[in-house]
């Protein structure tokens, strides 16, 4: 990280807008700012301190009077403003600005902080959102704890040494090297492992529970399978019984009835035919008997007539039954015609006319005595009986045959009826036994079905219970696979990480102390009293110079506290920015903030000045060296060292105009830089306060 520019406006001794540009060339890492006492050297360091942390370092004179007094006299609303341009290691250029509207000693409010970032495309700065300025500075620019190391004022460290503030020093060193964060990360990983192990234990418990649950589920599944098997068998049995029952019912109802109905119809028909035939037979029989009777009576009558006709004794009376034979009907009918005088053809019968006469003659013919009548009757009777006898002889065989046929037919019908009745019986009792079927049906319904139904109910109830248990258990078991293996691996990996950090940290602090001590010892050996030793207070980093011979502390040796603080400060900076080849890759590079050094060169003798400058320049980072004019004279150690090292990129000269002494000559030879000689207060102008002049080396 490098500081490329500092802009000051009405900041303490710097009146109006002034800017100082710094060398950012790696080959020329040192910018020297030269100025007499009271010309504003330390204000440059303070300005950097203030813009970053909103505070001025300890030992700052009038720390609440930051706005240039002359500017305030000109304009009571004058404000102080400092802008610091910084180029990060990632080549981002930030412009950090702080403005103070009213001095704190006049009841001013807080300063205004802002950060903008250089947009390389447009070459303009664009404001960044930095809601927490302290956090942003800490994370991106310089940690607060390290401010006194990189914004170096010899006095601060000297006082820390004197005060024995080992805690502050230790913290600074830890922050500087990042070892505290390594330790913190190590502890954090430790806690992480603890947490994961707890999580693992919990998971294991859950897994055990789940395993038990799974076992239980398996058992229930087996049980369920068995129950389902039982249910299946029972249902099969039940189905068989139902089928059998249906079969029986069908036998008992549908099929038998159909067959029986047909036979019954046949029987009914036969019965009817028999009845009709028997009626016919009865009728024939009656006719036959009537015919026989009539025929017999006729024969008797004829025989009687023959006997009468062939009687030898004329006196014999005719058979009594002949006397009762009917009245002569013909004569009566003719007589009725004559009486009515109307013929049956509708013509009138007129007495005297022919038809009338003929009828009279006919009546007369028939009008005989009782004998004639009897004979006529006998003859008529004999003829009639004879006709009947003839008819009987002819008809009787037919009736006999008819009777016989009817009898035969009836016999046939009866035979058929008997056969049908046999079939009916056969249907009812021969092919299957209805009673047996009914018995079987009863047994099925009353004895075999109920136990099956009951067992089915029991098994189904059991199945329901198991299903509920299973559902509950399944809901409790995790859906996916357990991630305990992953947790194991995470813990294993974290332990490897921790081990690596632990191994690193184990001797890292010792290593830091050793490196720091070695660096300090080198410096003491090179620039201090020969043989003098650097020792740290026990368990701290407070350095002491000790006599090699006696081991006694010698605080005044070779510049005493001032040199010691310069050695210490620059060694720390060197330690922070250096990376060892054997440092692990994960170790962040140390802080690389520029070393702004306002060392008390003026109080050192010439040799120590030069040595101090050499030490500071060798810190390995960008150096901003604030040097007293007197110490930078051409014959001083600093001048010689800088000339010798030839590392300067820029030189600045600060002049100071004391109010009321405009144009005053200053009793100074001035500083020769290149072809120019710079003297304070040389110009006759209205300028009051400090002014920074760039003094480029040619």
């Amino acid at each position, binding site marked *: 990280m490098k500081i490329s520019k500092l802009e000051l406006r009405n900041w303490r001794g710097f009146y109006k807008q002034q800017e100082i540009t710094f060398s950012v060339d790696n080959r020329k890492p040192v910018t020297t700012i030269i100025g007499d006492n009271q010309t504003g050297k330390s204000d440059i360091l303070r300005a950097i301190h203030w813009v970053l942390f909103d505070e001025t370092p300890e030992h700052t004179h009038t720390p609440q009077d930051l706005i240039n007094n002359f500017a305030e006299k000109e304009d009571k609303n004058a404000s102080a403003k400092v802008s610091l341009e910084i180029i990060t290691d990632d080549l981002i250029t930030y412009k950090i600005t702080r403005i103070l509207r009213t001095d704190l000693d006049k009841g001013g409010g807080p300063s205004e902080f802002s950060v903008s970032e250089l947009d390389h495309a447009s070459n303009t700065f664009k404001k960044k959102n930095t809601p*927490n300025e302290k*956090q942003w500075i*800490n*994370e991106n620019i310089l*940690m607060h704890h390290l401010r006194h190391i990189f914004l170096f004022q010899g006095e601060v460290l000297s006082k820390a040494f004197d005060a024995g503030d080992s805690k502050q020093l230790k913290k600074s060193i830890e922050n500087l090297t*990042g070892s505290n*964060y*390594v330790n*913190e*990360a190590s502890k*954090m*990983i430790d*806690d*992480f492992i603890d*947490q*994961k192990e707890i999580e693992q234990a919990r998971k294991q418990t859950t897994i055990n529970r789940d395993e038990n649950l799974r076992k239980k589920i398996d058992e229930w599944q087996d049980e369920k399978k068995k129950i389902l098997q039982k249910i299946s068998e029972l249902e099969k049995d039940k189905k068989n019984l139902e089928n059998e029952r249906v079969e029986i019912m069908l036998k008992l109802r549908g099929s038998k009835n159909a067959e029986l109905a047909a036979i019954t119809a046949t029987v009914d028909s036969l019965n009817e035919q028999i009845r009709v035939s028997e009626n016919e037979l009865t009728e024939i029989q009656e006719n036959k008997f009537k015919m026989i009777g009539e025929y017999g009576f006729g024969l008797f009558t004829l025989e009687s007539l023959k006997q009468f006709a062939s009687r030898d004794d004329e006196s014999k009376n005719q058979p009594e039954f002949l006397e009762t034979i009917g009245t002569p009907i013909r004569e009566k009918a003719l007589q009725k015609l004559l009486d009515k005088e109307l013929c049956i053809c509708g013509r009138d019968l007129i007495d005297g006319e022919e038809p009338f006469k003929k009828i009279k003659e006919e009546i007369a013919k028939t009008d005989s005595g009782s004998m004639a009548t009897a004979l006529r009757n006998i003859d008529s009777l004999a003829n009639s009986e004879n006709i009947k006898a003839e008819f009987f002889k002819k008809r009787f065989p037919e009736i006999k045959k008819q009777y016989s046929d009817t009898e035969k037919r009836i016999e046939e019908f009866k035979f058929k009826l008997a056969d049908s009745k046999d079939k009916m019986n056969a249907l009812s009792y021969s092919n299957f036994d209805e009673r047996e079927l009914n018995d079987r049906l009863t047994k099925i319904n009353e004895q075999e079905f109920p136990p099956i139904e009951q067992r089915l109910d029991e098994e189904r109830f059991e199945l329901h219970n198991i299903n509920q248990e299973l559902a509950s258990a399944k809901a409790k078991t995790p859906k996916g696979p357990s991630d305990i293996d*992953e947790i194991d*691996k*995470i813990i294993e*990996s*974290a332990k*490897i*990480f921790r081990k*690596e*950090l632990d191994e690193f940290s184990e001797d890292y602090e010792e290593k830091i102390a050793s490196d720091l001590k070695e660096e300090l010892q080198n410096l003491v050996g090179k620039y201090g009293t020969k043989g003098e030793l650097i020792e740290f207070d026990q368990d701290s980093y407070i350095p002491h110079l000790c006599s090699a011979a006696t081991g006694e502390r010698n605080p005044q040796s070779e510049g005493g506290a001032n040199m010691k603080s310069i050695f210490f400060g620059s060694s720390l900076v060197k330690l922070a920015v250096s990376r060892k080849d054997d440092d*692990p*890759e*994960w*170790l*962040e590079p140390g802080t690389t903030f520029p070393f702004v050094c306002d060392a008390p060169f003026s109080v050192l003798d010439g040799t120590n000045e030069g040595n101090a400058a050499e030490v500071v320049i060798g810190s390995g980072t960008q150096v901003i060296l604030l040097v007293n004019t007197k110490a930078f004279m051409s014959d001083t150690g600093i001048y010689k060292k800088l000339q010798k090292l030839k590392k300067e990129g820029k030189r600045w000269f600060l002049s100071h105009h004391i109010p009321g002494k405009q144009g005053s000559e200053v009793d100074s030879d001035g500083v020769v830089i290149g072809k120019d000689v710079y003297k304070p207060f040389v110009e006759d102008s209205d300028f009051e306060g400090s002014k920074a002049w760039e003094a480029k080396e040619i």
Partner: protein
Amino acid sequence: MDISNKSKNKILKATIKKCKNLSLRNDTIAVKKEKVFKYLNDSISKALKGEEVEDK
């Protein structure tokens, strides 16, 4: 699968940086742990699967 050296360095570096930044923000221990633990868990998990690890 073992974590690659590259992933390991990345995770350690990011963890240290997180610890540093969270400390600088004066976050509480609980917040620190929550954030660092989450990062460790996620990044180690990813690294174990051979996935690219984030360094933030």
